[in-house]
């Protein structure tokens, strides 16, 4: 029994991991005269239109005449009314939000992306989450410079034009504050995926490989760390081991096809795929190559994890694999028993997502979801799973397994090992309680609960 399931799981994954390859596999199966043919033979009658519409049987028909409104009867607005296009006014509720009580002012604060209102795997630039330590500067790119110095053969200074002359790369990556999910360490706080998982976004970055820039300056053998620094009021710095810098980091000047937004580091930021967002230094102006780490405030006082025995973990670079169901989630109400396409996001700082499984009974039994987006390295991956809801109380959970073999743990297990004073890296599963449809007061509500 167990073997069979695993076989099916492996097959599904292969199929969903690579869209191009799936088409190929299907084709070859048909040629080989295998499973595909026999299935076709069984349903020889083909598509039956009467059967297809059966669920509508007995429903009253609408008889009112459809009235044409102004959209049909008058001309709409002309070109270039908005030289830079804006979302429809009907989408005005879709916005990043903050909790005022989190920080004493807005210059060292955070907003969360409306994860439950996003589709696919790309976050629009205007909805990208924000995290500042000294407010947002407005920097003229003509005046901006990047220097690489320290333990290098030849300190160099680059203009924006210089940087854009280098070979470019474009990559889709998620960027996540390690405090994402922090509100949930001590228990459940609020009913929205925007608050539980909104301190992250996923965009396409374009820029220059950091390894190209560092090689250009010629790192000396003693240079084991790089210390990037921002040009803003916080002068944010972190220490990155040179292996990490040479692996897949780059200096980005564009996000989603246009220049970076100021909130995300205009004119340039560091991209450290899979790692804590605070390492992705914004307004990047200086990279010092050094022999030891710096022990900056953001890698000692903050962004370190206090354990239950009073010891603390430092240099927690990678973001653990994580997943969340965005639909249904607490911002939605169920519309009655029936079919639902459970959707959500999965991501891993250590590579690609391999499997996402869904449970409706609080984690006892799991079914594998399939992917509706490309499966990319260190990027959001969109999953979906067909669920026949019978209207009874359900406990929805998603669990990711990444390509390194890491399986997302349940919350009690993480709490028992890491305590609840940690603040950062709360990456265990969350649970959405779907209230029974029959429940008089709350039928169909989706509630954030915690084990």
């Amino acid at each position, binding site marked *: 029994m167990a*073997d069979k*399931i*695993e076989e099916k799981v492996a097959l599904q994954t292969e199929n969903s991991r690579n869209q191009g390859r799936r088409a190929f596999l299907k084709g070859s199966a048909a040629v080989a005269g295998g499973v595909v043919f026999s299935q076709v033979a069984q349903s020889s009658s083909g598509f039956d239109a009467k059967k297809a519409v059966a669920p509508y049987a007995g429903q009253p028909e609408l008889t009112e005449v459809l009235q044409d409104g102004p959209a049909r009867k008058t001309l709409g607005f002309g070109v270039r009314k908005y030289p830079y296009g804006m979302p429809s006014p009907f989408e*005005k509720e879709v*916005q*990043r939000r*903050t909790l005022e*009580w989190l920080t*004493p002012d807005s210059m060292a604060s955070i907003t969360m992306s409306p994860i439950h209102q996003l589709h696919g795997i790309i976050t629009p630039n205007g909805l990208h989450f*924000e995290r500042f330590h*000294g407010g947002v500067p407005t920097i003229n790119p003509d005046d901006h410079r990047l*220097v*690489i*110095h320290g333990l290098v053969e*030849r*300190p160099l*200074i680059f203009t924006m034009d*210089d940087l854009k002359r280098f070979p470019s790369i474009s990559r889709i990556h998620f960027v996540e504050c390690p405090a994402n999910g922090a509100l949930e360490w*001590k228990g459940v706080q609020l*009913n*929205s995926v925007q608050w539980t998982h909104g301190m992250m976004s996923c965009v396409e970055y374009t820029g220059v490989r950091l390894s190209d820039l560092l*090689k*250009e300056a010629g790192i000396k053998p003693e240079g084991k760390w790089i210390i990037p*620094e921002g040009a803003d009021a916080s002068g944010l*710095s972190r220490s990155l*081991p*040179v*292996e*990490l810098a*040479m692996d897949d980091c780059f200096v980005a000047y564009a996000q989603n096809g246009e220049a970076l937004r100021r909130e995300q580091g205009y004119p340039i930021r560091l991209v450290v795929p899979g790692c804590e967002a605070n390492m992705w230094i914004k307004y990047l*102006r*200086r990279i010092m190559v050094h*022999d030891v780490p*710096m*022990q900056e*405030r953001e890698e000692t*006082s903050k962004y370190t994890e*206090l354990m*239950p*025995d*009073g010891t603390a973990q*430092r*240099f927690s670079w*990678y973001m*653990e694999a994580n997943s969340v169901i965005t639909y249904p989630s607490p911002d939605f109400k169920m519309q009655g028993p029936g079919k639902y396409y459970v959707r959500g996001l999965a991501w891993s700082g250590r*590579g690609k997502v391999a499997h996402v499984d869904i449970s409706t009974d*609080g*984690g*006892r*039994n799991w079914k594998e979801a399939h992917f509706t987006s490309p499966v990319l390295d260190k990027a959001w991956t969109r999953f979906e799973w067909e669920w026949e809801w019978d209207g009874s109380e359900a406990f929805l*959970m998603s669990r990711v397994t990444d*390509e*390194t*073999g*890491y399986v997302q743990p349940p919350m009690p297990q993480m709490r028992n090992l890491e*305590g609840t004073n940690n603040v950062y890296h709360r990456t265990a599963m969350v649970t959405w*309680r779907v209230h029974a449809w029959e429940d008089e007061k709350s039928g169909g509500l989706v*509630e954030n*609960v915690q*084990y």
Partner: protein
Amino acid sequence: MYNTKQTIVAVSIAALFTGSAFAMSNNSDKTVEVSEKIDGKYAANYVEIIKNADGKYLDKTVIEAILGVEATHGRAGLEGKLDPENPYSAEVDDSIDGGNHGNAQCKIPKAFVEVHESAAANYYNDDTFVARGFGTPISEAALEVWNITVDGDGKGLPDPSVGMTVEEGGELYVKFCSMCHGEFGEGAKGYLPLAVEEDLVTSSFTDPAPMKSVGNYWPYAVTLFDYIRRTMPFWTPNAPYIGDAGYLGMTGYILQSNYIPMDDEGTELSDDTFFNSEVLMKMNKYMPNQGNWFCDHRPVIHNVRCMNNCPDEQVGGNGTGDPTQYRQARTLPDGTLQYNVPQRLHEDKPGVGHAGM
């Protein structure tokens, strides 16, 4: 010092076959014999084992094959992970003279072979690289105005002739900092305190998390000087009217408020101590919490991907296996659960962006 050369390649991989095969992962028919162990503890052929498991270096069976089935995970497994020979260790030598534990360095564990291979290909082994010449050379001296980095060993600190007495530093602090951080570092208006006496261990998971600050948490004193010169006072960072001497004096005042000693006898700063980089480096060795840090050794949880009838500890109900045993969020004043946009607490009105944006 951090040495990138792997010291264990000399161990012969084919030397010893235990005869036992380890199944690597879901339904994989690939198995790898564990060869000789480093120090009798860790499989020397860990790279081979990981590659044969399709790179699943965090898979429970792979970790067990490399570290041994007796390898404990979670916090108890930390001890073994502090051994630099352990492929999963994030720790390297603390050989710098900054504090009593040195300027602790962490590294990317050797078991994360992909990162190391990528770095090798992009950098160490790239002998064909020819500079493009797109940048402009600049002298280190010209960069001095920008270089404000002080590292954990104190490199980058001002000359010992620069400084002021702790009392003078305190006067500056009261003038420029106390409105937000309190006269004695107790915090004000919701801004962070800079001196607290809280215990870092709480008795229950539901207790409020302890406040972490300079005296009870920070591992390095030099960080304080670097940070306040870099970013404070919040509205006018790196202020010339405070200057290096002023930032050093305020550092002294904050360290004094945290009762940090500067020698084995526990001598504390007095008001007329001339606080300079030398005094700061002495105190850098006596930060009370310095010994309580370890490098990232996550993941500490290695679960198997269970699909059916999973064990109770994996199921809702916090170990009971009963999914209806859960905790809920706070409720609205009338006792009903708060849901959806208009009911969320303390949020911006729809249509209004972030205050101050």
